[in-house]
């Protein structure tokens, strides 16, 4: 039976999250580190992007939801896009890396990748079964 699924993406794995941040032009550092906000106050995160201006961007693992969450000082948000849009773009890149690597692990090959007018990324993966 064919089927059609819709998945609300959550940032569950570190590697595709790091890759997604790099896609958006950031240089994430892995490992526990402080995230600087207002007046130099800090909180700990599990990976972070150091910013020269405004608050750092951190991601903290939330064990109860099983996903990473953005931790930053929103009063010092100095990114070129609003935080909601930033999270959407990040999630899209995260999903792309996750789909590609899971496909390869399951023996599928990428046969098509296109970006549509509305900004969606379309992928076709195929595999020949014996």
């Amino acid at each position, binding site marked *: 039976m064919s089927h059609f699924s819709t998945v609300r993406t959550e940032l569950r794995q570190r590697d*595709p999250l790091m890759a997604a941040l790099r896609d958006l032009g950031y240089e994430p550092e892995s490992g526990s580190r402080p995230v600087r906000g207002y007046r130099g106050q800090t909180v700990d995160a599990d990976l972070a992007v150091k910013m020269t201006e405004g608050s750092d961007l951190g991601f903290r693992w939330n064990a109860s939801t099983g996903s990473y969450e953005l931790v930053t000082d929103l009063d010092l948000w100095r990114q070129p896009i609003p935080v909601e849009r930033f999270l959407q773009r990040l999630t*899209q890149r995260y999903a792309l890396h996750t789909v590609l690597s899971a496909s390869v692990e399951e023996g599928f090959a990428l046969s098509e990748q296109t970006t549509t007018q509305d900004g969606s990324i379309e992928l076709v993966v195929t595999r020949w079964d014996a």
Partner: protein
Amino acid sequence: MPQRTLRFRIRPDGRVEERVEGVEGEACLGLTERLEAALGSVERREATSEAYGTQAAQTQPLPVEQL
């Protein structure tokens, strides 16, 4: 040798739509399960009829409005 094809549409907000074409084998289920573990919760899952993605269905002429 059957070819398994999966189509993904990754929306600008990060939602992922996955469509499995043809008969769903173990391979597709393996990938689907692996993805769902890495990506998150499935919002909707629906069975599609085999005719769903066919040429015939896609080339239906649009009704022309009478002037």
